[in-house]
C-alpha cells in the first residue's frame, strides 16, 4: 500500500469515500514524476470513473473491495489497473449513472481493456500516454 516512485497498490473497501484516496495517490505519483497538471487531471478523471464503476456497479447490495495498481513504465506511459471481485460486467438499462464512464475512460486512455475473468468480477486496465499534449 505504500506509494513509491514507480507506482502504488491500494486495496480499499468499495465505498464512495475511498475514491478520493485513489486520486490522492495518483497525484502523488504523477507530481513526483513531473507530469503536467493538465495531463494529471485527465488521468485522475479516467481512473475516478473506473473506481466509481467498481463502487457503484460491482457489488449491488453487498459490500466488497476493489484494488488499484498504478505503475510508471519506460517510454512515458502509466499503467493503471482497477479490479473488483463483484458481479462481472452487468449492463443495466436503469443505471443511476450518466452512462459516460467507459467512453470517458476510452477517450482519455491510449488503451482501455476490460476483462471479465469467469466468476470473479471485473478487471479494467488503462494505459495512459504521459506526454502533456496527448489527447
Amino acid at each position, binding site marked *: 500500500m505504500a506509494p513509491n516512485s514507480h507506482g502504488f497498490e491500494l486495496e480499499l473497501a468499495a465505498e464512495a*469515500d475511498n475514491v*478520493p*484516496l485513489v486520486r490522492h495517490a495518483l497525484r502523488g505519483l504523477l507530481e513526483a514524476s513531473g507530469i503536467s497538471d493538465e495531463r494529471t487531471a485527465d488521468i485522475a478523471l479516467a481512473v475516478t470513473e473506473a473506481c466509481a464503476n467498481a463502487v457503484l456497479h460491482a457489488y449491488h447490495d453487498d459490500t466488497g473491495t476493489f484494488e488499484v495498481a498504478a505503475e510508471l513504465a519506460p517510454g512515458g506511459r502509466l499503467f493503471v489497473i482497477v479490479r473488483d471481485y463483484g458481479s462481472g460486467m452487468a449492463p443495466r438499462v436503469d443505471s443511476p449513472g*450518466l452512462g459516460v464512464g467507459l467512453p470517458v475512460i476510452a477517450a482519455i486512455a491510449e488503451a482501455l481493456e476490460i476483462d471479465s475473468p469467469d466468476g470473479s468480477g471485473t478487471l479494467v486496465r488503462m494505459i495512459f500516454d504521459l506526454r502533456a499534449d496527448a489527447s
Partner: protein
Amino acid sequence: MTPGSTILTGVNTIVVERTEPGVEVVVVTGEHDLSTAPELERQLKGALESGAAVCVDLMETTFIDSSVLRVLISAREQADERGIGFRVALGDTTGHGVRRLLELTDTERRLATAPTRAAAIAGATNGPRG
C-alpha cells in the same frame, strides 16, 4: 455522507450563499466526485425549492466526475421545467479537470454556463432563458 476527502486536500466544500436577493449561490470548492455528489444533489434540491434563482459557482472547483456532472445536468433540467433561473459559473479559475469533462461530453451549453460569478448571477436572475 460527509465530504470524506476534506482531510486530503483541505477545501472540498459545498456552501450555499444567500447574500444577493432572489438568488441562491451554491459554491462548490475543491474536488468532487461520487463521494460528495449526493450532498450536492441535496443542496441543489433545497435551492431549487427555495423559490429563488439558482447559481452554481464552479470558479474554485478543481475536479468533478460524471456523478457530479449528472447532478448538475439534472438540476438544470429541473430548473427549466419549473421556470427557475439557473446558471453555472465556469471561468478561468475553474480547474482543468472540470473543463475536460465538459468538453469530452459536450455538455457546457447544456449546463447554461457564464464566465464569471457575477455574470452567472445576472443570467440566473433574468429568468430561465434570460
